[in-house]
């Protein structure tokens, strides 16, 4: 039996082997035509030929009713399925055999086909997903392990951009906050998390557009705010983690960083402490901004004292970018506490304490009538910024439709600067110190009236005091200058606002009561100084107290792309001044109307915008010096003279065009005009040779500015040439002291040519040159012509993501006919960095070197003056580091 089966199997196999080639080549063709019951062709019907066990042999889709089915390897019964949605399917049984060629016609009859509506609910996981206004990024899909903190991750996410200063932009707009697991731990100080939270702790990052931090206004108020929400990997109850980075190197340099994060359901905490002597992270405090209503403390730029000695210097670039000779300690302690289901509190404290040192040597050579002598000058600078910031914030949902928010902030900061000049001929010392104290409390109640309207009531109180002292003296005290300034504020603001949403339009009306008391005092005593640091003997005293009470109503209406604002206030001011040069008046009452409207038009390549505003206002010292109480002693009091109620008209028109794809060009044209109906005085003479007229200034009573800029891009030599040109024309009329009206004209042109490589190598090269020419003319002084040239070279070598060498070289040459001077500088900054990563441990080596030199040449009244200055920084640093976390 077994033998019989074996023989049968043998013959079957043989038969297959013998006949297989014939079967392969056996072809059949079925053509056909499909119509509906009325004889009209049906295109798009599916025609499927299946074998007896339902396997598909071939198929076609009808085109104009025609189909064609072909097969090569089937012989037997088959089923031809002809189907079309809305018609009864036809199943035709066909006997297929070798060389079959038939033509069929099928008529499909209408049917009451019932389609099943379905919804698939399965969740899908994406690297980036978008839901409404939220874009979510699965971080693991974008990082490669070289990222240190959140900021490094954000740089790699599509749609995000991080600036050199650490500002985070999403889709080109600045973000407002960074939340952790939905918790607002930091307020608007989002650089604390972005620069400190470790990249490895983050699982997801969400960008939320049109964010409203007051959910009671949802659907009523439009928002253009964007925030970021960080979702952490570990979501356990307390979830503590600690990260440490320690670096130490040559010449006792150090860089220490430690942070702790905990994101429990009740308590969220982030604490960070940094200390270094290499000039990094020297940012936490601002200068002397007088706070306005309801501001939150920001972790912003370093204290930068404007130097009255030299205002234009390429070395300032070094100071801001990489202060190699400073030390700074900073820390931030942030808590978010869930008090109960209705309320939560935020408690914050931050500090910074720093010390920056600069040192430069200059050799000055004078040549007069064949006689020469030299001055060897040594300049030192020590800055000590110091700041504490604290905040208590409470959010309490009183009712379902009502919410109270309270925000208390204290801010204590101080700073000192000692600058000294020692030479073989003279010695000067300059002392500056600042002390600032600010406290504010803000109370806000929001009540949602209907789905489209809400009421907001606010009460704010602010107290601040800013004191400053400045002293300049020479070694034997024969020459000196001292200045004492102080500003104190008491500020109460109570306001109510009604908001109504009218579909895509918004309407609001508000009333406001303000009472502001301000003390201002300044005393300047100027002795006899013969150096260029002073301009003569002078004593100036200003002391004033002013109190402003205002009741204001505001009407705001947005429709289409037009925006109208109308603001009417009744203002009462009491002003007392000891200053004898200001025609200030006591007990001023006036109506303060503000009107503005604007229109903006956009299309794919061009934009134009138009804005007009009118304001009647009382201009006083605070308006002229709103942000900085370090007054330039050479202009204070001399420039400020006329103070009065003025009507201000401002007109701005902008036209811009960009076509960077086809014509590779961008262009913009702007017109600005502002005028005041009375003189308000000017604070200084405008110096186009120093200032870039790309910004709009309004130093005069009538100011007109026309600006034009064109950028062109040229692809060549496997790289891109960028050609930029700017032209600005500026006319203004102003008063200096009580002199006659002065007419001023200034123009400035700026050109730059930059070439940047697009090589597919680890080397990147950028080389460029900037050229600027300026002219200033006045009916009271002689013309000033100046020009400057500014070449730059940057080479970056980055063979892997862990290794970097960069060399950045810049130089600067300035010529001016007013003093026949030539000023040239050069700066070379090089950096070498290597990182080695293994599991949770990271080892790194970083070395940097900085060189700078300045040469100056001037010819004045027949004598020549040259100088060579070298800025001594701790030019070389080498650090070895280890980083680990728990």
């Amino acid at each position: 039996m077994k033998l019989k089966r074996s023989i049968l199997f043998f013959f079957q196999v043989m038969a297959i082997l013998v006949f297989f080639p014939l079967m392969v080549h056996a072809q059949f063709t079925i053509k056909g035509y499909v119509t509906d019951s009325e004889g009209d062709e049906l295109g798009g019907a599916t025609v499927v030929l299946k074998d007896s066990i339902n396997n598909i042999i071939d198929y076609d889709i009808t085109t104009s009713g025609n189909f064609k089915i072909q097969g090569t390897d089937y012989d037997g019964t088959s089923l031809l399925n002809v189907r079309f949605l809305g018609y009864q399917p036809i199943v035709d049984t066909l006997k297929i055999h070798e060389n079959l060629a038939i033509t069929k016609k099928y008529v499909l009859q209408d049917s009451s086909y019932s389609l099943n509506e379905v919804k698939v609910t399965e969740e899908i996981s994406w690297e980036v997903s978008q839901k409404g206004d939220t874009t979510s990024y699965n971080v693991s899909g974008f990082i490669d392990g070289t990222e240190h903190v959140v900021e490094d991750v954000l740089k790699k996410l599509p749609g995000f951009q991080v600036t050199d200063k650490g500002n985070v932009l999403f889709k080109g707009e600045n973000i407002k906050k960074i939340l952790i697991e939905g918790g607002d731990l930091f307020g608007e100080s989002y650089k604390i998390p972005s620069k400190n939270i470790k990249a490895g702790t983050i699982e997801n990052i969400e960008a939320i557009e049109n964010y409203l931090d007051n959910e009671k206004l949802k659907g009523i108020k439009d928002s253009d705010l964007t925030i970021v929400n960080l979702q952490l990997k570990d979501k356990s109850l307390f979830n503590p983690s600690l990260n440490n980075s320690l670096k130490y190197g040559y010449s006792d340099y150090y860089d220490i960083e430690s942070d702790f994060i905990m994101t429990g359901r009740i308590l969220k905490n982030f604490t960070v402490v940094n200390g270094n002597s290499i000039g990094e992270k020297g940012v936490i405090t601002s200068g002397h901004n007088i706070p306005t209503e309801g501001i939150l403390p920001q972790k912003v730029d370093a204290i930068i004292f404007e130097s009255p000695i030299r205002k234009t210097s390429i070395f300032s670039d070094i100071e801001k970018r990489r202060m190699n000779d400073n030390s700074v300690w900073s820390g931030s302690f942030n808590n978010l506490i869930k008090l109960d289901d209705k309320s939560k509190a935020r408690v914050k404290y931050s500090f910074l304490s720093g010390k920056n040192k600069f040192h430069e040597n200059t050799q000055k050579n004078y040549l007069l009538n064949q006689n020469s002598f030299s001055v060897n000058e040594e300049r030192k600078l020590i800055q000590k910024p110091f700041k504490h910031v604290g905040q208590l914030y409470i959010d309490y949902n009183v009712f379902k439709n009502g919410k109270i928010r309270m925000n208390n902030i204290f801010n204590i900061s101080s700073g000192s600067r000692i600058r000294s000049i020692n030479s073989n001929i003279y010695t000067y010392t300059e002392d500056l110190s600042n002390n600032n104290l600010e406290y504010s409390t803000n109370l806000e109640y929001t009540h949602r009236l209907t789905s489209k309207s809400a009421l907001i009531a606010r009460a704010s109180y602010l107290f601040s005091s800013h004191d400053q002292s400045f002293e300049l003296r020479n070694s034997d005290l024969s020459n000196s200058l001292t200045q004492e300034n102080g500003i104190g504020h008491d500020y109460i603001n109570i306001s109510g606002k009604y908001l109504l949403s009218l579909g895509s339009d918004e309407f609001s009306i508000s009333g406001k009561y303000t009472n502001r008391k301000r003390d201002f005092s300044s005393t300047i005593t100027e002795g006899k100084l013969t150096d260029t640091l002073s301009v003569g003997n002078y004593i100036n005293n200003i002391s004033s107290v002013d109190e402003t009470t205002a009741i204001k109503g505001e009407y705001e209406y947005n429709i289409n792309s037009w925006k109208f604002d109308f603001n009417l206030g009744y203002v009462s001011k009491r002003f007392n001044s000891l200053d004898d040069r200001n025609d200030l008046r006591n007990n001023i009452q006036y109506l303060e109307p503000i009107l503005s409207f604007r229109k903006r038009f956009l299309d794919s390549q061009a934009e134009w915008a138009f804005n007009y505003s009118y304001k009647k206002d009382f201009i006083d010292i605070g308006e002229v010096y709103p942000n900085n109480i370090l007054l330039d002693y050479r202009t204070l009091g001399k420039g400020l003279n006329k103070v009065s109620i003025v009507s201000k008209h401002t007109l701005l028109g902008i036209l811009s065009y960009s076509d960077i794809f086809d014509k590779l060009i961008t262009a913009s044209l702007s017109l600005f005009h502002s005028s005041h109906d009375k003189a308000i005085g000017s604070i200084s003479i405008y110096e186009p040779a120093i200032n870039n007229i790309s910004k709009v200034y309004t130093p005069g009573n009538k100011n007109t500015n026309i600006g034009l800029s064109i950028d062109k891009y040229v692809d060549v030599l496997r790289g891109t040439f960028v050609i930029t040109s700017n032209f600005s024309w500026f006319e203004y009329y102003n008063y200096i002291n009580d002199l006659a009206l002065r007419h001023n004209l200034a123009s400035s042109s700026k050109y730059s040519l930059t070439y940047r490589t697009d090589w597919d190598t680890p080397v990147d090269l950028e080389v460029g040159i900037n050229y600027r020419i300026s002219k200033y003319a006045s009916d009271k002084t002689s013309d000033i012509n100046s020009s400057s040239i500014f070449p730059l070279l940057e080479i970056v070598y980055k063979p892997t993501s862990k290794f970097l060498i960069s060399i950045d070289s810049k130089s600067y040459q300035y010529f001016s006919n007013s003093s026949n001077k030539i000023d040239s500088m050069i700066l070379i900054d090089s950096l070498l960095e290597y990182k080695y990563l293994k599991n949770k441990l990271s080892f790194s080596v970083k070395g940097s070197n900085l060189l700078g030199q300045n040469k100056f040449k001037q010819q004045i009244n027949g004598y020549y003056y040259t100088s060579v200055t070298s800025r001594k920084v701790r030019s070389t640093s080498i650090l070895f580091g280890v980083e680990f976390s728990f």
Partner: protein
Amino acid sequence: MCIWILSSIILNVLILDSGSGQPIDSRGITVEYDIKLSDVQTTGMLFLKNNRSVFEWLKFDSNEVSSKFNKKKGKFKINSRDTTGKFVCKKEHGKEMFSRNRTLSKYYYIKEKIPSIPWDLKQDEKVIGGYEAHKAVGAFRGRSYTVWYTPEIPISNGPWKLGGVPGLILEAKDNVGEVSFQLKKIKKNIPSVKFTKCFAKKGISWEEFRERFNDSIDRFARYMESRMSGEAKVNINGIFNIEKSIIKE
């Protein structure tokens, strides 16, 4: 009311002009897909009626439009919030197809023949949204796709430019995980105005669009690099397109 009447007239003209057969379903069918394109997730809508179809995606409301280059701030916003969106309109199988697609600079209408993708029908089966789905594999413009179609809905169509299998495509994925269309909903009825924007445009050919696309990438990369600081480099190879072969080597 006037708009409704006008829309109805236009729709009726299209229906009467469709040329082949009677309406298969007087209300049409709307199929919604979850779409993944590289690192972007969005939703696509396929509207089917008679022998015509429209597939549209990346469409935004008109109040979300933003596209601007701000020179002073150095900001450049790509017009990702396009109110027309991208779409593919197909006439009857084997005939014409119109699509709207963009280079980096602007949108173009592309007119081409509905592609004939050589599908290899497999025996594998699975259920998607209650429909019995069959597997097919095929390659189209630089990507290899696995699709799942259902013969229970005998319409040879699918998301985007995919189609040509004997049933509606419910799911399609490429083999490198960059492109994915997954069924989300099937509904009866379609908005009547959906068909009015198709088929009336004068389009350029696919090859011509391809040339313009590559040209725009090249220009954009050069431009961005010229604006960026030291270490930044625009990776031209990182540009994503569903039609992978659009990018010239």
